[in-house]
C-alpha cells in the first residue's frame, strides 16, 4: 500500500495553522510590519537635511542655486546670520548637516569664465550619511550645471544598478530574505516542539511512522506559507516602492524555494535540541534574525566588517540568498552567474537536513 502518511500529517498541520491565530498572525503581520518599518520609518534615504547657506554673492544666480537645493526635496535651507568662523560651532551644536558657502564673486565669475567654485562642508561624523549628502549635493549641482549650460562637465558619479541610491532596492530583497528565514525556521521549530510539549508527538512516535515522513509532512505547509510571504513582499516592493525585477521569475522562485529549505532545515535542527516552544523560539530567533540583519549584507556591507565577522558570514544562508535575489532582481543575472551562491546554499541545506533527520529520534528522551 502506498504510504499516505505524509498527506495525513500535512492535512493535520494545515488545520493547525488555519485554526491557530498566532501562526497566521506571524505569517501575515510580520511582513506588513517590517515593510512599514523599513519602507517608511527606517528609510535609509535622508530627507530634510538641514543646510546652512552663506551667500556672499547675493545675486539672482546664486539664489537660483540655493533654490535648486531646496527644490530637490532633500534639503531644508536656511540662512543663519552668523560670521563665517562660527561654522564649526554650527556643526558642534548639530544644528546643520551641511553648509554651503557661495563666494562674493560667484555670479561675475560664472558669467565671465563660465566656471566657478562653491564650497560645501559636510558633517561626516556619520560617514554613511555624509556619503549620501555628498551624492545628493553632487546631483543637485550637476543638474544645475546642465540646465544652465554653464559647465560642460558632468560631475555625477555613476552609481551602477541603483542610480538613484534608492534604499528600497536594497531593503526589499533583504526583507524577503529575513521574513523567509524567520517564518520558516521559527514556525517549523515551534510546530515540532509544541507537539513535544503537548505529548502528541509521543502518540505519533508509537505508530510505525518514519522520521522523514513526520519531517516532510510537517514542513511542507510551511514552505507554501513562506513562498506566499515572499511573493507578497515582492509584489508590495514592486508596486509601492518601485523595485525593479530584471531577471527571470521562475529562477527567483527556484532559488527562493532552495533558501526556504535551508531555513526549514535550521528550524528542524533547533527542534531536535529544544524541548519547549519557548526555547525553540529563542533559539530560532537568535539563529535567524540577528545573523540575517547583521551578517548577510542586508544592512551592513560585508566588505566593511572585521575579518573575523566576515568569516562568520560564510555560514549565514541569507548572505547567499541576498546575492542571488539582488542579482536576479536588480541586475537580471542568469543561472550561470549565480552558481557559486547556489552551491553554497545547497551544501548548507543538505548538511543541516541530514543532521536534523538523523537527530530526529523516533524515541523519547
Amino acid at each position, binding site marked *: 500500500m502506498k504510504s499516505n502518511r505524509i498527506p495525513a*500529517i500535512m492535512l493535520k498541520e494545515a488545520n493547525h495553522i488555519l485554526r491557530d491565530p498566532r501562526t497566521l498572525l506571524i505569517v501575515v503581520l510580520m511582513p506588513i510590519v517590517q515593510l512599514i518599518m523599513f519602507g517608511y520609518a527606517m528609510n535609509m534615504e535622508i530627507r530634510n537635511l538641514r543646510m546652512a547657506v552663506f551667500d556672499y554673492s547675493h545675486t539672482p544666480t546664486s539664489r537660483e542655486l540655493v533654490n535648486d537645493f531646496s527644490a530637490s526635496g532633500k534639503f531644508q535651507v536656511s540662512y543663519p546670520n552668523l560670521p563665517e568662523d562660527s561654522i564649526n560651532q554650527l556643526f558642534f551644536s548639530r544644528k546643520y548637516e551641511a553648509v554651503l558657502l557661495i563666494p562674493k564673486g560667484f555670479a561675475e565669475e560664472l558669467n565671465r569664465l563660465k566656471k566657478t567654485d562653491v564650497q560645501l562642508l559636510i558633517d561626516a561624523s556619520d560617514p554613511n550619511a555624509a556619503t549620501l549628502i555628498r551624492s545628493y549635493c553632487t546631483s543637485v549641482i550637476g543638474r544645475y550645471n546642465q540646465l544652465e549650460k554653464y559647465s560642460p562637465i558632468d560631475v555625477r558619479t555613476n552609481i551602477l544598478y541603483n542610480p538613484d541610491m534608492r534604499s528600497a532596492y536594497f531593503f526589499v530583497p533583504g526583507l524577503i530574505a529575513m521574513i523567509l528565514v524567520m517564518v520558516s525556521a521559527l514556525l517549523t521549530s515551534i510546530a515540532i516542539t509544541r507537539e513535544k510539549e*503537548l505529548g502528541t508527538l509521543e502518540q505519533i512516535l508509537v505508530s*510505525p511512522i518514519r522520521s522523514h515522513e513526520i519531517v516532510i509532512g510537517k514542513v511542507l505547509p510551511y514552505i507554501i506559507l513562506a513562498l506566499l510571504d515572499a511573493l507578497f513582499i515582492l509584489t508590495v516592493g514592486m508596486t509601492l516602492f518601485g523595485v525593479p525585477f530584471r531577471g527571470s521569475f521562475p529562477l527567483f522562485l527556484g532559488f527562493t524555494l532552495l533558501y526556504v529549505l535551508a531555513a526549514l532545515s535550521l528550524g528542524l535542527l533547533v527542534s531536535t535540541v529544544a524541548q519547549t516552544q519557548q526555547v525553540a523560539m529563542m533559539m530560532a530567533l537568535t539563529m535567524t534574525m540577528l545573523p540575517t540583519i547583521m551578517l548577510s549584507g542586508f544592512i551592513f556591507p560585508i566588505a566593511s566588517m572585521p575579518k573575523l565577522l566576515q568569516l562568520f558570514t560564510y555560514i549565514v544562508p541569507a548572505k547567499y540568498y541576498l546575492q542571488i535575489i539582488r542579482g536576479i532582481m536588480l541586475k537580471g543575472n542568469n543561472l550561470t552567474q549565480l552558481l557559486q551562491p547556489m552551491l553554497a546554499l545547497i551544501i548548507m541545506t543538505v548538511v543541516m537536513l541530514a543532521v536534523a533527520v538523523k537527530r530526529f529520534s523516533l524515541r523519547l528522551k
Partner: protein
Amino acid sequence: MPDNSKSLMIQTTDLTKRFGRFTAVDKLNLSIEKGEIFGFLGANGAGKTTAIRMLCGLLKPTSGTAVVADCDITHQSEQLKTRIGYMSQRFALYEDLTVKENVLFYSGIYQVETSRALSVAEELLSEMGIDLGSKALTSSLPLGFKQRLALTCSLLHDPRLLFLDEPTSGVDPQARRAFWNVINRLAEKGKTVIVTTHFMDEAEYCHRVVIMQEGKAIALGEPAVLKNEHSVPNMQQLFLKLVS
C-alpha cells in the same frame, strides 16, 4: 521454555531504565500471556509509565531485554509498532481537530483504509453518543469522551496488544464502568490489554497485576490469590499493606 513462550505476549528480562543516576525501572521480570488483562499498580513515580514506554519501543532500556508481540523492543521496534496500540497517560490527540479529523489522521499514519477506520470509530464512539460528523473541536469534549476517542484512535489498526496508561483517570464512575466494559470486550476478542491505574477497584477487574514501588515489582499475581496470601479483604488494603 520455548513451549511456554508461544503463548506469551510480553516477556521481560531484567528490564531496567535509568535517567542519569536515578533508576526509574529496576530489573523488571514479567511474563504476560496472550489474551490477558494485565494491571500495573503503583504510587506516583513508581515507574509504570516508564515501563510501558519501554515495552512500546518509545524508550530504549538502559539494560535488560524484552520481547513484545514477538519483537525485540530494542532492535525490532518498527515492526513492534505495527502490532501494538498505545494510549498515553496525558490526552494526546489534537484538541484543535474535530473527532473525525483525529480519526482520519490516525488512520492515515497507521495506513488503515478510511472506510474501515470510520466503521471501527463509529462502533466505539456511538455507544458514548459521540457524533463523528460533529463540527465541534475535540477540546470542547468532556474528558470521558476524549479518553474514549483516544482509545478509538489506538484501535484503528486492529492491534493485538493494547497499552492503556491510566485510561480512566479523572472521569466519573459511570464512564469508568463503560470504559472497562470495552476493555473486557477487547480481551474477549483475544486482545491482550495492559492497563495502569490508581483505582484499586479497577485492579480487581484485571486477570493479573504487578505492584510496583520505586521501579521494582513488589508483588505479582492474580488479585484473588494476592489477597488471600496477605489475608486482606480487598486490593486497596493489599496495596496499602505492601507499600507502607
